[in-house]
Each structure stands twice: as structure tokens, then as C-alpha cells.
């Protein structure tokens, strides 16, 4: 992204982890319904929200992401029965730690979105983008294991 023009508005970099069964399909539905959301959102497909390892999120913030959102199936609808419950608990912990590390709670989110909720997906992304935008550039986490 070009930094040379001063009047260029801040464009956040947002990574979205979507589970293959519900929210990735919801994102596809948002697409086929032509419901727009900012191009700042880049989706990574994972089999289940329970697959999202906290390391991925830390890595994203380390590499300069401004916001990370994890989307899964609604409680009770997980394709693998319980993955989203684990994700919810795991992320609650991680987010409070991230907040402590300077990555505000507004930059992280877990959202449930079914394959039929294209509208919800697009609204969520718009809302989340606005939120992250208002928070500005995120602090960049450093990896103290191996500085390059």
C-alpha cells in the first residue's frame, strides 16, 4: 500500500479465518448476492474455527495485520460438533492477552455466520472494518525468538 501520498486514507489490513462449512459459504453467498464489503478483508479458508491456532493470529499481528476476525458456525451447528466451542473459549483467552499486549479488543473478533447469512457476513465485515479503521494502525508485535 502506498504511503507516499499524504491524503491517502488509512486502509486497514484485515485477515479473516472462515470455516469451510458455514462462514466461508456465507462469504460466498455474500459474493453471489453482490453484497459488498471492503477489499481490505482477506479470507483464509480453514476446515473449522477450532483449527485456528492462536499462533496464526499472533503471526498476523506480527506481520502487520490491523485486525483479525474468526468466523465459525453458530453454536450447535458446528460441522464437527464442538470445534466452535473450543474456538470461542480459546479466543476469549487470547484476545484478553492481546489486549494486554496492546492489540485492542476492537481489532479481534469471533463471529458466528451460517452458510445462509450472506447479509450478516457482509454487515459484519463492514462493521468490523469501520471499527478497525477507527482504531488506526495496529502495533506490530515482535517475535523475540528470532529477530530478522
Amino acid at each position, binding site marked *: 500500500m502506498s504511503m507516499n501520498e499524504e491524503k491517502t486514507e488509512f486502509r486497514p*489490513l484485515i*485477515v479473516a479465518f472462515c470455516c*469451510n462449512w458455514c462462514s*466461508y*459459504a456465507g*462469504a*460466498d453467498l*455474500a*459474493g*453471489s448476492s*453482490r*453484497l*459488498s*464489503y471492503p*477489499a481490505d478483508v*482477506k*479470507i*483464509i*479458508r*480453514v*476446515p*473449522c474455527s*477450532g*483449527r*485456528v*491456532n*492462536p*499462533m*496464526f493470529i499472533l*503471526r*498476523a499481528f506480527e*506481520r*502487520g*495485520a490491523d485486525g483479525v476476525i474468526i468466523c465459525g458456525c453458530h453454536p*450447535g*451447528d458446528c*460441522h*464437527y*460438533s*464442538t*470445534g466452535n466451542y*473450543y474456538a470461542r473459549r*480459546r479466543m476469549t483467552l487470547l484476545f484478553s492477552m492481546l489486549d494486554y499486549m496492546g492489540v485492542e479488543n476492537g481489532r479481534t473478533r469471533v463471529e458466528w455466520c451460517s452458510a445462509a447469512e450472506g447479509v450478516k457476513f*457482509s454487515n459484519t465485515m463492514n462493521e468490523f472494518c469501520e471499527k478497525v479503521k477507527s482504531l488506526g494502525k495496529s502495533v506490530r508485535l515482535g517475535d523475540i525468538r528470532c529477530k530478522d
Partner: protein
Amino acid sequence: MQRIGVFVCHCGTNIAATVDVKKVVELVRFEPGVVFADDYMYMCSEAGQEKIIAAIKEHDLTGLVICSCSPRMHEKTFRACAEKAGLNPYMVEVANIREQCSWIHKDREEATEKAVILARAAIAKVNLNTPLQEGESPVTKRALIIGGGIAGIQTALDIADAGYEVDIVEREPSIGGRMSQFDKTFPTLDCASCILTPKMVEVNQHPNITLYTYSEVEGVSGYVGNFDVKIRKKARSVDMSACTGCGECQAKCPLGKMGKIPSEFDRGLRTRPAIYMPFAQAVPAVPVIDRENCTYFKTGKCGVCAKICPSKAVNYEQEDEIVTVKYGAIVVATGFDIINLDKFGEYAYNESPDVITSIELERLMNASGPTGGHLERMSDHKQPKDIVFIQCVGSRCDDEKGKPYCSKVCCMYTAKHAMLIKDHWPDTNITVFYIDVRTPGKNFDEFYRRAVEQYHVNYVKGQVGKVIPQPDGSLLVQGVDLLDNKQIMKKTDMVVLAAAVEPNKGVRKIATMLTASIDNNDFLTEAHAKLRPVESPTAGIFLSGMAQGPKDIPETVSQAGAAAVKVVGLLAKDKLKTNPCTAKCDPMFCNGCSTCANVCPYGAITYEDQQVRGPGVNETRRVAVVNNALCQGCGACTSACPSGAMDLQGFSNRQITTEVDSICR
């Protein structure tokens, strides 16, 4: 290093209108690993696929990135295409630049930029892809049904009719289950045995069905398609092939006349001999000796049955036999029982013989029951003139006394009982204390209304607080009419309790053997509450009947049919293709902590002692092993693993991390 080919699709104008396809091709051409990049109008078309195949051959490609529509749409197509060209199908990644890019963005520059980023992420991932092989496992074309009630019978018949061999394991001496104890069935009031016994006989005579009655499942090993099941055939003490079912032994057993052994089938309302068939229409019509009560087995004296048996079938020496059989699929149809009422002292169930449960009432009204179908009080054998029914006894309780769920069948069977009694003895006064009358189902509410409107059954909205047996033999019922806001003190002759249903006692043991999950109430859980209601999350295990949750006979029969279709669908396959995107444990890092096994919804992770060799390590230790036939690839274990030993093939930690990296570049 991979040799990657990138193919960008125009999708007519669907993509090309907002994404500058040519520019994408130019920009990704110099990404690491990319040796070829091209665009085409319709990549998924015959011509497009041929283009891909040609490029694979010409440039010796080892990986493909297709920038097109959603992988949910055409991933399969492109994988098949790669396979045609001799490339491993799992070396293909799809960058979704239509649904998640061109269709939602209007600004051409922005959309093109995003398309490039998405393509880069996919390229970075393919660089780390490894060829994956779909596993294959053979299928044993034989199904096991645990439980021989109406659920098990129907499932067995449906599978057997489709041409597969089925075994039924039933704990009791006869199949038939709860339904064989019932008198009539709602809402049509046809007699239960009239519709059940023909099915029982059919099961017995079906060439594809083998019955293991008076038998129990002892152990299960293996996985979908390849279960090894140990079945204990308890000693019947009667030779099945010699016995003609004449019943002489039952009639002559000295214990029969003494009336000391309560009949389980008649819920203790009558007694049985030590050698017995549970009921006259039992299938198989072969008695068993109840060794705990039999005088011969207790004292070594008696032997009347052996002496009297015309076909010399009685064999006291018979021993339990254990057989091991291979199965491809297992159906759990273990059914239900009613809860123990000891904790409900207020209803005086243990104090008065005239306070009975609904299932005992079924026996009292059954023509083959202890009273020959004549309704009478167990205390003085007089016909009751006034009967009180109490609903929700133990159902919808949130304390430890009862069950939190609605038992679903009680409202309907109580209406049935009330009407049947009124039909036979119209001057009987019937009061039903209810909390709610729940009658969803075809012709169900009409049925209940008929009890009120046509038979004038007195339905009282309220509950009974106490039943007090009176010195004159009657019962004093203290209850409330909430709509009148009045307390009712009422003398009655008989109280019938609609006790809550619960899964049969043995189900916990069976579920543990099968690694099938059960809920807080011991009902088996389904793989998906809405979309996979007859499958257990454990592959190859199917659910039928009350074992999965409260349901009536029509529902049970339809679920039994559904389970049968799922079983047939499995058995029809010669080989099972297994999803290669499964979890994999790196023994170097695994310390056998069991965290992964605890989060695995499929019981796919076991532990074994392995020799671990590496830099500075050479030891035997307990490590996790993933069963690829059971693993569904959800990845729950990978993010739970504290040491990073678990990884998911096809969505590995490195692959996802590199996607994150290339997006955040």
C-alpha cells in the same frame, strides 16, 4: 522447489469486469515457484481444462493455482483435471477471486490488487503442499444391530431386504422390546402385538438375519467398515435347535406355582417359573433357565424340566459362548426404560399397590397380561371406579430427582389409556392432572381432543402434590386446579403415574465400547442435530429409536428406516475412500499428554508406545496415533496440542502461516 502453474479465469466478464486478469497474470509470474502463468475465458470448461493438462505436461508442473470462483464450486473439477494429467489432486489450490473479490468490489484497481494478494497466498500454500493419497479401507458387508425392539427390528429388516446380512444382539431372551409389552398404540389404537409379532416372525425367518438373543456385546474394536465385535451368548440351558417351544417345562417347573419370581415382562405384576419364555409370542420360542432362581442350579436337586422335556432340549451343562464377528456398520437401538420412582415418595408408589406406572397399566389392560385384560386394583382385585392420572412424573425436572427433558410420549398414551378405559367401562371416572398437554404429530391433537370431547375425560391443569393411601383402601389425592385456583382433595381408587423415560441402563457401557458420544442424560448424540440425525459422530455407528432421544413408535420406525439407508449406503461400497486431509502426529514432539484425544469428537486418537529416535533422543514413549479412517480433519487437536506435535495435512500450520504471511506482506 515446486514448479507451479497459475491459471487465472475470466469467468466471462464475471471476474474480468472488475479484475484486470492480464495484470494478475503478469504480477504473479515472478512469484517464487511459479514457472507458468496464463489466463483463459472459462477455466472450468473442457477447453480450459485441456489447457491446464497441456501446461502440466509441457512445463512439468508439480503444483497448480487456479484463480477462479469459490473452491466450493470447482475445486473438485480442477482436482480431477490435475489427476487426469498425472498430478496429485491435492497439489491444487484455488484462489477465490470471484465470490470473494470481483463480485463484491467495484473499484478495478482495488479488486485487482486483492486478486493478486489472494493468488500469492494460494501460491505460497501450494509451495508447501505435499501429495496426499486418499486412503482406502475395505468394508465388511455385514451390519450389527444392538437391541431387538421395534427400532432394531425395523432397521434389521430394512437392511436385510436390501440384500445385506444383519445380526441382532438382544439382551433379553426374546426380541420385541418395550413395544411387545404394550396393549394398543396411539393414535389409531391398533393392537401392538398384532403389528409387532408379524415383524418379529419375519426377522426370525429372514435368510439375511441372524438373531443373538439372551446375548450381550462384550467388546468392540476396529473402525468404520471393519469392526470386530465380541458377543457373549449367555447360556440358555436349553438347546435352541432341539427345543420345539412346546412349553411343557414352563408348566411343570415347581417354582412356577410358588409364585416367588416376579416376571420382568409383566413388570412384577405376576410371577413366572425359573424356566420361562418372557411371553407367549416370544421369538425365538425357546425358554431360558434363570440360573439365579432355579432350584437345580442352587441346590443340585430338582431337574424336573430336563425329565419332562419331550425333545431332551434342556441342558444344564451349557456354558456361555463368546463369538467374534466382523461388521461394517453398527446400529445402536438399545431403547428405553422408565425411571425409578423411589425419589418420588409423595406419590406413594412404593406404599400402595394401587399406584401404578403407565407401563404397568399397559400390562393390566393387555388381554395376555396378568389379569387377562380386565382392569383391576392389585390390592383387592376390584375394578376401579375412579382413576387419577398424573403427568410429568420425573419429566421436566431440573433437580437430581428427575429428568430435564419432556418424555414426549406420555401425553398421548395417557389420552389413549383414558379412552380405552372409558370404552370398556364407560362409568369410570377419569381425572388427568397435567402441566401442559403436548400433542404435536399427525392426528395427535385430534386424538387428545376426542378424549375430552367424546369421552369426557376430566383434564385438570395442575399437579398432584401428594397421594395418601387411606385405611379403607382408597387413595386420597391432594392436587391443585390452577385454572380454578382451588386445591383439590379427592378420593380415588387408582393412581397412574406417567413416569419419565430414560435410556436403557446398559447404554453407557455400549457407548463407551463404541466411542459413540452420549449427552448428559445418556442419550446418544447425533453427528449433527439437524442434518445427520441418525449417525453418531463416530463413523460407522448409527442410531435408531429411543436410544437417541424420546420418540414414539411412528418416529422410531422412520428413524429406523433412515438408519438402515445410511447403513446400506455404507455397505454398498466395496472400499471406503478416506479423506486424506487428516491429522498427523509428529512423535518427536508428542509427549502423550492426551489433550488431543480429549478434544477429538470422533475418538480417532489413540496412544501407543513408540520408539522415538532423533537428535539427542532415543527412547520408547507414549505418543498419539491418529486413525485415518476415523479422523474427519477438523483440526481441533492441532490447535489444542500444547507441543505442536499435531498437524493437519492439507491445512498444516506452516501452510496457514504462510498464507497469513503473504496476505500481510
